[in-house]
């Protein structure tokens, strides 16, 4: 019970710190602005205005969500070590793993909070432009949240042992690879060189397949998204996130706080 109180104290403090970060508001402002301008762009098209609004809106939410997850997330642990606030925290009966979990949870809460705000803006724009919303939109937005949670875990892992700049580069690299790994895998299977096939297969196995969480087209086109698919993607995200946090915890437990 006390352990949860400690983790929760760190998480709420992290959330409080994140929502005082000006970068968060800047990204949030631009995401809402882009969602809003989708109406303008849709008005330029003669056909499928509602689909364009939804397509652009959901893509903006995914893009800015990742921006917030990466740029707010990467500095959180490094900042605590640099400013030496981690010294006083770890001098209390708080293990390094609990500290890391608290930081992750705080950032995950921040990401979900901004996702809810962007989703409200998205729903407002869609409804005001005469469109309709259904389970598909809720499922797509929920899976964006799961993807962001996984990206937060990746940022936490890199932030546990490297500088914010490198952590940002690595995390964005994993994000890009994660969306391309499925394509790479298929290309690798068709390659004539065995080593290319081998590399493409291992990239696909090691890097999370982030396309699993991309249901933008299905939601925007009103195509069905099954609850089973959502459930399996959620399990995939939770499993991957847990593995990443285990790795981050192992690294963080063994590093010196110089």
């Amino acid at each position: 019970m006390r352990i949860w109180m400690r983790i929760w104290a760190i998480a709420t403090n992290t959330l409080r710190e994140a929502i005082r970060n000006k970068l968060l508001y800047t990204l949030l402002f631009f995401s809402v602005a882009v969602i809003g301008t989708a109406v303008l762009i849709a008005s330029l098209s003669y056909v499928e205005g509602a689909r364009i609004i939804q397509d652009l809106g959901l893509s903006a939410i995914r893009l800015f969500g990742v921006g917030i997850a990466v740029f707010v997330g990467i500095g959180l642990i490094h900042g605590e070590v640099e400013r030496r606030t981690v010294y006083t925290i770890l001098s209390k009966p708080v293990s390094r793993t609990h500290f890391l979990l608290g930081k992750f949870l705080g950032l995950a809460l921040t990401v979900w909070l901004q996702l809810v705000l962007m989703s409200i803006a998205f729903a407002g724009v869609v409804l005001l432009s005469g469109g309709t919303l259904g389970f598909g939109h809720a499922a797509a937005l929920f899976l964006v949240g799961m993807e962001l949670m996984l990206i937060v875990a990746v940022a936490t892992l890199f932030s546990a042992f490297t500088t914010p700049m490198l952590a940002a580069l690595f995390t964005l690299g994993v994000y890009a690879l994660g969306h391309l790994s499925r394509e790479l895998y298929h290309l690798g299977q068709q390659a004539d060189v065995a080593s290319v096939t081998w590399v493409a297969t291992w990239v696909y196995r090691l890097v999370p397949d982030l396309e699993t969480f991309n249901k933008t087209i299905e939601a925007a086109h009103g195509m069905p998204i099954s609850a089973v698919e959502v459930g399996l993607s959620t399990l995939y995200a939770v499993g991957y996130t847990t593995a990443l946090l285990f790795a981050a915890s192992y690294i963080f437990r063994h590093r010196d706080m110089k």
Partner: protein
Amino acid sequence: MTRSTRDIICVEDVVKDFRPGFGLRRKRVLHGVSFVVREGEIFGFVGPNGAGKTTMLKVLMDLIRPTSGRASILGSDVSETEFRHQVGFLPENPYFYPFLTAREILTFYAKLSGMAEPTRSQRVAGVIEWVGLEHAADARLKTYSKGMLQRVGIAQSLVHDPIVVFLDEPMSGLDPLGRKEIRDIILRLKAEGKTVFMNTHILTDVEMICDRVAIIVEGQIRYQGTVENFLEDDDMRSDVVLSHLPADLGVRLDEDFDARIQGVGDRIEIHLRDKDVSRLLEMALAEGAEVVSVTQRRISLESIFLETVAKSREGSSNR
């Protein structure tokens, strides 16, 4: 008052190596450091900048892991976590989240220490009063002066009512008034029966408040004991000036006495313990040297400390 001699902190042969870069070369920062801190005392861990004081303190706080050796606090290995509700720590130049108030940050640390309501709020209010911050308890920390932040730092180290408190350079960067306030707080901690471990290089503070000291130079303990003993053993010194020395007398004096000898030609100045002066004079006069002057002086902890550091550095450069 009977005084317990229970050991609160035990450090045994701690070695710490760092790798400065990506290479395989290692730099040894602590060379087998051992010391003991007893219950209820104010222990000064003294050394020049870069001597390894903060590294040792980080080992005790489990912020860095020793390469070899063992350190324990209250009988628990420092790598354990749960015993830390009995330990308080103030790092050097502490930084706190500027968007929080003193009450909020202390509540945060109380939660980390596992304190539940209503004890938590009572203890936070009590410790705010204890460090004299009632007037600013609900102001954001970004509006605080350095002295006030130092008091917040001390308050966070005490909010969970620990048995032992670690302070890293607690007087660093403070004006004389601020230093006195912190000294008074440390003495109050001792009066309440807490054990205080203090890293410092400000020797006047050590002389004023510490019961025992360990002097660390270049990662090695050079002295460990009470401040009184340190001063009693060495507090009277003499400067002897000799002239017309036979050629090899300077070398022989250097070999026979624990002294610092400076000078050129046949005139030398010798700094040595007062108790050795008569033996030195006897030897010098027998060899036909002329005594120019003998000046006796009582020296401060600072002088002895500087001498210890100089000797250690001389020794290590000769090795």
